[in-house]
């Protein structure tokens, strides 16, 4: 007599992130994703300081995209923030992701950047899933899996009294 489960996917949502290999690989992925952004940001600072004029111009050219008038509006009205912000935030996001500090907040920042790059570059010749989109997914994955808890400083910070008394902070850390 054979028995069959009513729901074959009953336990399929359980992710064994606690296995040594999964934690190790998340940490590697986090380090390389962070380096990617850190390198992009720090080299902009070296080359043009905090006056990245290409940023606002790039946004102004993003007409007719799924983001509607938002990028163009940003390019026209937030140039004062974008010029220093692109190199600065890329660098800080990269550092935070690499160190695993405020990982989810940094991952949100990275995902925001990558959404603009994905839509703005529009390199869809080989389909919608471009390298920019894969970068976007990497940041979402960092946030969703709280990658900073694996060999990252968030693992230590989340054990402090300050964070334990404010558990909502784990939505920005992890």
């Amino acid at each position, binding site marked *: 007599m054979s028995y069959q489960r009513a729901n074959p996917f009953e336990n399929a949502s359980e992710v064994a992130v606690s296995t040594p290999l999964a934690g190790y690989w998340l940490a590697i992925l986090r380090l390389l994703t962070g380096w990617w952004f850190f390198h992009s940001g720090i080299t902009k600072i070296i080359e043009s300081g905090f006056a990245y004029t290409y940023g606002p111009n790039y946004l102004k050219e993003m007409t007719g*995209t*799924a983001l509607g008038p938002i990028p163009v509006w940003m390019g026209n009205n937030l140039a004062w923030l974008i010029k220093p912000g692109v190199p600065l935030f890329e660098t800080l996001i990269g550092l935070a992701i690499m160190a695993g500090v405020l990982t989810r907040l940094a991952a949100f920042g990275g995902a925001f950047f990558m959404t603009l790059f994905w*839509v703005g570059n529009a390199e*869809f*010749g080989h389909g*919608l899933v471009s390298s920019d*989109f894969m970068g976007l997914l990497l940041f*979402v994955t960092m946030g969703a899996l709280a990658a900073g808890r694996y060999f990252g400083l968030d693992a230590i910070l989340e054990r402090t009294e300050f964070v334990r008394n404010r*558990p*909502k902070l784990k939505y920005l850390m992890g």
Partner: protein
Amino acid sequence: MNTTYDTIDKAMLGLSGALITLGVVVLGIVEILAGEPYGAAPVEQTNDAGEVVNTIYPAIDPNVRTGLVIAGLVVLLVWGLYRIATPDVDEDSETVGVTAD
């Protein structure tokens, strides 16, 4: 941090995943079935001299597809904000029925 998901959580995660999957995979299949171009960008056809003689556009506007994916990501963000805003329920605590006096 509450790790149990109620109906609202499941609905928002389901909606987010559905929008992203619709934008990338489902409409990607439609795009393939609709014939060239198989990507999501226009393809220029050239003659032997290299002159562009025709441009073939995707069957589905890439803005629609990217828009669906972005909408899915926004739902995910809104869900995260919702989780921050709602009070945590202590997972270890049990509700004990009490008879009214």
